[in-house]
């Protein structure tokens, strides 16, 4: 197994080398890329194997790479790392497979070579993050992850606007990284080597206020990476502009490294965090979940919509983690374990269906050349297989039963029911309210994804050019279909992930009761059976009465015929909900009728609606302005006059001498 772990790293480094050599040499490009993809896939399979052994069997692995690096570089896999390593390796396999046809179709030789050089390195950096066992190794992976993902985003183009978005991404990542470093450094006095084992024992003897500081730094630092509101501003800008498979990896997997790191800090190092920590996480989760999906509902660009829905799903994960912390603080480990299980389960599920939806969006974009919901329509008839696969993704992400999204949320709901058993009155109200937030989020997500699917796949094409589409490409569709199958399997037989996840949860929160959830698998299968029988029965009624089926045009209320533009669009569908939740959007509408002098007989009407709730304007702009103002003040010291600088040096020297003398 250790060989497999070594192979994982070697192969992931060999891949880019091949790509670079292929880019220079004269070999047939497609074969070089095929080779890199195969090598990367082989590495990921090795990694998934190692991960499964560590996650399910609890076999620990340690790999010491210190002799390759200037600092202690220790990688080790326990059950928690094993699960996340599996997430990185197994769930990114479809994205790698999908990249082959996608990159072949969209990129020229140079860009493709760059892509295949960077993709394995990006995966490698995520693997380092989830397996590192020293602060330095963690940090190396954490920073490389940002660097490589940024480079991959640049492959799609570097216009002025994209540069701004990428700059914002880098800025947030660096800000978050600064907080994370500070969190690690607070351990330094007690654990100078900063490896995870000594950090763990240092946390045991740490004072309360210091622990609280570590918690807050980790919460904000990893929250920036996870995209918690209001630290999310970079996410809906950076994710959609990446190449589609990279968008999928960023949303589906890279965000989860922040979840991993937060879990590592809170449950492994700090064993539960401060008493109020649970409520902070709960509140952040609830706000991100509800606002994330509300903003998603407003979007009409498919990839941006999916990016906002990632914020929502991260919110759900934080909601469950917060419940786990609250239950743990109130000495109710059985329910804490349940909540943590829900968080991990949703982490896996979101990785699967978000990858599915992003890759599916790529399939749609390749065929139709647009991602604007209101330009699409009727795709189910033109791309039947894509339509079915995408439907599975939409139902899963809406959290509806018999698909994987529900299985995780159901466990979360059951852990929120612990509210009644907790001693603290605050928790007794907070946990049911969290359940309410999850219910509202679920309902909004269902509305959002009905809207998405209905507008894109049902009805008739809104754009006549769409009516003639190329045939669906099996090479692009197969990886997406594999993810859809995983959604259905986990949805109906959730025990196959609950069981190994439970053994992981037990290492973090001992004292859980497996019997309380062991019925979930069989009950969902019973319901699936009931639904199947009932649906077959309902279909059979038509056969018995022998009712005919006839195609006939829809009545057009007296008009000669209905046109595609008369259909409800995504914007019109979400209108009532946007009016109800107007406080969240504060939308600004612009209606232009031309000619203006004859408003009752217009030749053209244009309607524009824009969300004005802007975190940049109301939250970040004042901060940036005050920083700039402070910098202005500092400029008085910084005159550019060399004599003055010499004076500064002289004064500093005098000060140091006096300090050393009289200290």
């Amino acid at each position, binding site marked *: 197994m250790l060989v497999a772990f070594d192979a994982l790293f070697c192969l992931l480094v060999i891949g880019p080398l091949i790509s670079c050599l292929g880019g220079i040499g004269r070999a047939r490009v497609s074969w070089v890329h095929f080779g890199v993809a195969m090598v990367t896939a082989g590495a990921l399979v090795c990694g998934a194997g190692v991960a499964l052994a560590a996650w399910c069997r609890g076999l620990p692995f340690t790999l010491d790479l210190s002799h390759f690096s200037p600092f202690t570089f220790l990688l080790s896999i326990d059950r928690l790392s094993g699960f996340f390593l599996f997430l990185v390796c197994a769930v990114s396999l479809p994205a790698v497979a999908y990249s082959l046809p996608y990159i072949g179709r969209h990129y020229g030789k140079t860009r493709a070579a760059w892509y295949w050089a960077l993709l394995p390195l990006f995966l490698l950096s995520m693997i380092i993050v989830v397996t590192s066992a020293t602060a330095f190794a963690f940090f190396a992976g954490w920073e490389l992850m940002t660097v490589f993902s940024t480079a991959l985003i640049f492959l799609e183009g570097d216009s002025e606007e994209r540069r701004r978005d990428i700059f914002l991404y880098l800025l947030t990542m660096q800000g978050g990284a600064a907080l994370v470093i500070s969190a690690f450094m607070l351990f330094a006095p007690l654990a100078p080597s900063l490896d995870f084992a000594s950090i763990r024992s240092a946390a045991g003897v740490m004072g309360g206020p210091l622990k609280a500081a570590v918690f807050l730094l980790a919460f904000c630092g990893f929250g920036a990476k996870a995209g918690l509101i209001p630290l999310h501003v970079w996410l809906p800008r950076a994710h959609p502009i990446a190449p589609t498979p990279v968008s999928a990896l960023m949303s589906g997997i890279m965000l989860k490294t922040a979840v991993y790191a937060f879990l590592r800090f809170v449950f492994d190092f700090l064993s539960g965090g401060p008493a109020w920590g649970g409520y902070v996480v709960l509140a952040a989760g609830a706000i991100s979940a509800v606002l994330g999906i509300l903003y998603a509902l407003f979007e009409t660009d498919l990839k941006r919509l999916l990016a906002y829905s990632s914020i929502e799903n991260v919110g759900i994960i934080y909601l469950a983690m917060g419940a786990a912390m609250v239950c743990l603080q109130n000495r109710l480990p059985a329910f804490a374990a349940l909540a943590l299980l829900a968080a991990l389960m949703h982490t896996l599920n979101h990785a699967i269906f978000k990858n599915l939806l992003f890759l599916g969006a790529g399939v749609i974009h390749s065929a139709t050349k647009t991602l604007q919901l209101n330009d699409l329509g009727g795709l189910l008839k033109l791309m039947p297989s894509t339509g079915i696969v995408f439907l599975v993704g939409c139902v899963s992400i809406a959290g509806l039963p018999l698909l994987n999204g529900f299985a995780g949320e159901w466990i979360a709901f059951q852990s929120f*029911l612990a509210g*009644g058993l907790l001693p603290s009155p605050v928790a007794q109200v907070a946990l049911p309210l969290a359940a309410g937030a999850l*219910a509202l989020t679920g309902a909004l997500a269902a509305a959002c994804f009905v809207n998405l699917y209905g507008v894109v796949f049902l009805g008739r094409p809104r754009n006549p050019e769409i009516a003639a589409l190329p045939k669906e490409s099996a090479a692009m569709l197969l990886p997406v279909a594999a993810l859809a199958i995983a959604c259905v399997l986990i949805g109906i037989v959730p025990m196959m992930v609950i069981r190994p996840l439970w053994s992981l949860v037990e290492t973090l929160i001992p004292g859980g009761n497996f019997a309380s959830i062991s019925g979930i698998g069989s009950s969902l299968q019973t319901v699936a059976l009931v639904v199947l029988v009932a649906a077959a029965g309902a279909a059979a009624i038509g056969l018995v009465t022998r009712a005919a089926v006839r*195609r006939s045009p*829809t009545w057009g209320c007296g008009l000669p015929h209905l046109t595609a533009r008369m259909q*409800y669009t995504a914007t019109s569908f979400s209108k009532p909900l946007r009016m109800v939740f107007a406080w969240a959007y504060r939308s600004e509408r612009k209606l232009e009728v031309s000619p203006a002098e004859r408003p009752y007989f217009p030749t053209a009407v244009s309607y524009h609606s824009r969300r004005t709730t802007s975190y940049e304007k109301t939250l970040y702009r004042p901060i940036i302005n005050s920083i700039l103002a402070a910098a202005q003040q500092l400029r008085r010291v910084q005159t550019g006059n060399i004599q003055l600088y010499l004076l500064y040096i002289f004064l500093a020297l005098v000060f140091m001498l006096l300090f050393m003398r009289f200290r």
Partner: protein
Amino acid sequence: MMALKAAQFVLLVLSAPLVRGIVARLKAALQRRRGASIWRPYADLGKLFRKEDIVPPSASWLFRAVPRLAFAFTLAAAAFVPLLISGALLSFTGDFILLVYLLAFARFLLLLGAFAGGSSFGGMGASREAMVSVLGEFPLLMSLIAIAVISKSTSLVPIVAWTATQNFFDISAVHVLAFAALIIVAIAETGRIPVDNPSTHLELTMLHEAMVLEYSGPSLALIEWTQAIKLNLMIALLIGLFLPWGIALGAGALAVAISMALYLLKLLLAAGALALLESSSAKLRMYAVPEFLGIASGLSVLAIVFTVISKR
């Protein structure tokens, strides 16, 4: 016991059109009309099942699959509800959450069906129905959770059995608040006045009817039946959670007979109340519906707060 559970499930499903018929008849009586027979909905279903299924040209296979699947999911939800005995065909930890989500799945499908029709009416109805359902989900789950917390159980059947053994006059504020919230949600979910008018076909006022406007024949019959089951299910849920006294706690023949007679009485009361409400109030303007459901949300949050207070 199993036979009884199956029988009450079948009863819930098959009697659904009858409940609609009774409500319609009571409404007619309140409006000094003679009204149609209470068996009329069955005749309607029979007629629709024999008619041809007309499918719009833009519709895909999903259009005809939707009513069948929505029916199946609603049926699965009905399997959780105790009616005459304190038992149900399906019962396990957290089943009321599953019930809510099975109904949500059915609605998800019907919303998709509306888009599949390709006309503007479908989208209009779907958009409005989505608004009502989004706002109804929060109070629905919150009041169910409040009841679950106060009765210290996580599954419908034990909750109903627990309530049936309590003294009626001892009933807590949680029950009163959750009951009020759930009534509002039930009206909204089943599309009755004052949220939606099931007998209107005017585009300005339609919610549910606009959503299913393109359906005909057996597909429409299944949708109508699904809607009737949902109404019956909601009434059964309200009776079971807040007025279960008399429900058979064992499987004795006499207990079941008494339970059945009492259930019929409660059902008639509920139908009467619904008919009275529908005859005496006007449909709300659509943008007043969020406020109406907001009241339910407020009540359900209060119910949760009272679970803390009433225990002390």
